[in-house]
């Protein structure tokens, strides 16, 4: 049953993948101009001169003068064979460029996700169980302020305060001595000591909304008859809430895991940009702004795939934890 279900979902993902890739490609092709106009524009901005003839030659080389569908076909057929093409800007295969960045992005997103969950769930439960208490109101207020403040604003102010008042550099994910070092335990520890700042900045608004969702979900469940049944069994209030309503209130949560992940990565773009994090976000932004098509395309496609996989994972997780869906 479960296998059948998963198989069906995976089969669905295939046409989905193509639709998404087409949209992604259309999006990155949508802006007028191409990589080379951006390239020229950027150089001009710095007062550098551009060799016009050289540009025209490159444009032809890159096939930028081809029609949209041909460009798409070239790209997607390569992608299927695992070739994401070449970054115009870096003259390097895209797959080489994005590997580590994606990995760090995923790490960051994972850390943020764990942080949000670790913070949001207990607070959400508290806020639901102690509905309309002082604590609930305080949490609600703080949560809303967290939701209302744009991340990048917090990031910049935090950085400035750290530099000017504490002489500390909070940007990046590594200390300088570890930036290019190979992976080791020490580097991992260094990462851990840096990652919490972006995690908090990124996690704040997500935490706030998660608290709200958890609270609402749990409020729905708290008055269900099975809670009374469990209470009539003689279960203690704490175990009762954790085992039954919280367990059920988590279901809609789990179904958001898959979404949360790619959204975190894409939502982190601006913050990562301000904090100069070596994650996928800034590179994606740059690639988009520079119209480095294949690089941007690969990123967007990967993000979309993450979303698709996320949906899949969500559905499977949901099926795993909720037997009602499994046997539907």
């Amino acid at each position, binding site marked *: 049953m479960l296998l059948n279900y998963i198989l069906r979902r995976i089969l669905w993902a295939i046409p989905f993948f193509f639709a998404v890739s087409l949209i992604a490609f259309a999006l990155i092709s949508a802006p007028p*101009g191409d990589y080379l106009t951006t390239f020229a*524009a950027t150089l001009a901005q710095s007062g550098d001169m551009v060799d016009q003839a050289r540009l025209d030659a490159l444009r032809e080389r890159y096939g930028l003068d081809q029609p949209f569908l041909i460009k798409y076909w070239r790209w997607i057929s390569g992608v299927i064979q695992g070739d994401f093409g070449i970054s115009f800007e870096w003259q390097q295969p895209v797959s080489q460029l994005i590997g580590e960045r994606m990995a760090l992005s995923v790490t960051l997103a994972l850390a943020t996700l764990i942080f949000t969950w670790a913070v949001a769930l207990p607070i959400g439960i508290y806020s639901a169980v102690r509905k309309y208490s002082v604590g609930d109101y305080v949490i609600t207020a703080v949560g809303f302020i967290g939701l209302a403040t744009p991340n990048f604003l917090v990031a910049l102010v935090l950085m400035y305060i750290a530099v000017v008042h504490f002489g500390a550099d909070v940007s990046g994910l590594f200390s300088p001595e570890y930036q290019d070092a190979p992976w080791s335990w020490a580097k991992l520890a260094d990462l851990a000591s840096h990652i919490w700042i972006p995690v908090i900045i990124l996690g704040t608004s997500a935490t706030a909304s998660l608290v709200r969702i958890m609270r609402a979900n749990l409020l729905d469940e708290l008055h269900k008859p099975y809670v009374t049944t469990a209470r009539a069994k003689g279960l203690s209030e704490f175990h009762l809430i954790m085992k039954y309503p919280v367990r059920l209130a988590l279901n809609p949560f789990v179904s958001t895991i898959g979404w949360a992940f790619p959204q975190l990565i894409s939502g982190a773009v601006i913050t990562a940009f301000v904090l*100069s994090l070596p994650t996928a976000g800034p590179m994606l932004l740059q690639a988009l702004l520079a119209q480095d098509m294949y690089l941007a395309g690969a990123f967007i496609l990967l993000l979309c795939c993450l979303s698709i996989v996320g949906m899949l994972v969500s559905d499977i997780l949901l099926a795993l934890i909720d037997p009602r869906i499994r046997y539907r």
Partner: protein
Amino acid sequence: MRAKLTIKSPGFARRVVLKALAGVALAPLVASVAFAQSATGEAPALADLVRAGQLPPVAERVGSEPEVITPLESVGSYGGEIRFGLRGSSDHNHILRMVGSQGLMRWNPTYTEVHPAVAKSVDVDPEGRIFTFHLREGMRWSDGEPFTADDIMFNVEDLLLNEDFAPTPPRYMSSGEPMTVEKVDDLTVRFTFQAPYGDFLSELASPLGQHPVLYAKHYCSQFHPDYNSDIEQTIRENNASDWQNLFLQKCGDIEIPSRWGNPERPTLDPWIVATPYSGGATRFVMERNPYFWQVDSEGNQLPYVDALNATISQDVESLILAAIGGRIDFGIRHLDTPADRPVLAQNREAGDYRFIAAAAPGGVDMIINLNLTHKDSELRDLFNERDFRIALSVGMDRQEIIETALLGEGEPWQHGPFEDHPYFHELLSTQYLEYDPETANDLLDGIGLDQRDADGMRLLPSGRPLTIRVDVIPTFRPQWPDMLQLIEQQWAQIGVRMEVNALERTLFFERTSNGNDHDAAVWAAIQSWVPGQVPQQIVPIHQDSRWGIPWVNWYNSGGSTGEEPPASVLERLRLYDLARGTPDPEERRQLIMQIADIAAGEFEVFGVSKSVPTYGIVKNGLKNVPEEVVNTFFATAPAQALPQSWYWQD
């Protein structure tokens, strides 16, 4: 300007002193007395390697004819690194500007003359057609392989003139014909042009003119199909799409990031790539080139500092924070916005740095180009009215704009080089600067714009409302939209409606340079018209001449596309071709001045304020850094001040 750096080249038989700027006092080069054996000092780390037998002795490494650099302040000591701040994308030219371009020729630190650099000397025939370069004996690539005429032949014949690789840039052509090159002997190469090409040496001094000595034949030829019979295999191994892509990936090009992405590539630069500048890098490091071919006046091999070290930030703001935090040793680029000056100035002590001036070579920060070739005939006719342009110019209160948007820094100026420059053209630069709304109103009334709408805004003769939409890239220079908003309000006073059309940069290019769809556009015109620079505001020859894009296309295509320009422009184009050809600097100046005369008479474009010197920050303790550098790409600023000669005082 304190031009203290002097170049001493070893004596050569028939020396041509090239005075690019005849108006500048002719300062003959000091005849060289230094010789090869003067290469005696080297960095301790290299000395260790020599002792260990891993590196040949320094004299062998620099050859018998190294270039001798007299340091600005004092002979330095070895050690330390210079930290600077890069941005994560499209900032590769920043590296170029720190390292310098190491071409056959280069500009002097004051950007007034060109000198031989990689070439020991150059002979030019009187007509300005044949250029003979003499190379340095025993000079080596950074991997220790000798640098010879064969490298130049490879660069020119297999790449520069190879249409398969890329079209030959116009820089290496005259009268539409590419140059020819011959190897005279291992250390002598001769370049020959069809027609006189006096600007050639200046072109070679610009970073874009490095091509003849860019690639090391012994390394880069392995990525060339003529030298590698199994090129397909190499392409596949490197995931490249074709050999051209492979070549660019491995050996780079002048202005592309992959130039700084391959640590293996041999170069002639003072430092060589250790941690490459590649997509997603967070740090870029270059370490000293043990085979660098310059020595100081005491025979110590340059560079002094061991390494260049750049942290890569995404956001300019984090660079400013890094500067304030004292984590940047030298920086002009990204930090030199006037608006940031107070913050950086206030934190000089905290960050332990000082300011240096980054002078503009001339011209204006922002120039307004009305589209004289507008697609709408009514607007086109109007824009072509000289009186209309004069009215707009005197309708601007430049002093107010300077006070408000430029923090008081600046001086009303139309465009063109400054007063102390040999190419200074007083009329062109200073006419119609006075704020005079009355005259403006009179002029406008006089050309048939006397009808106004309910808001007091002028109507076109056809009755349509007159609106000039000025295209601008707000991210380009933050002060531009501010200045334009002030101008918008000032022009409204004389009944001319203007709209600021803020555009994303690619859109701007698509709309103006490519599409000719604009009413008007603003751009920078920081230039002094010296050889190598493009005087695009007095003669329409470049995509930045947004006052007559179809004319530019006409000129550049030899008449096959675009639109034939009017007589006055045609005359200027003719004069410009002549100026570019003559080897005589004074004659060149005369010709350019003739162009400027015509341009001044036409009054086609107008500016607001003299481009003001910006600033850079230098860490206290970093020596031999001039107090002022001319900040222009053509001189690869600030590398014309030779960072390899900078050192740390203990």
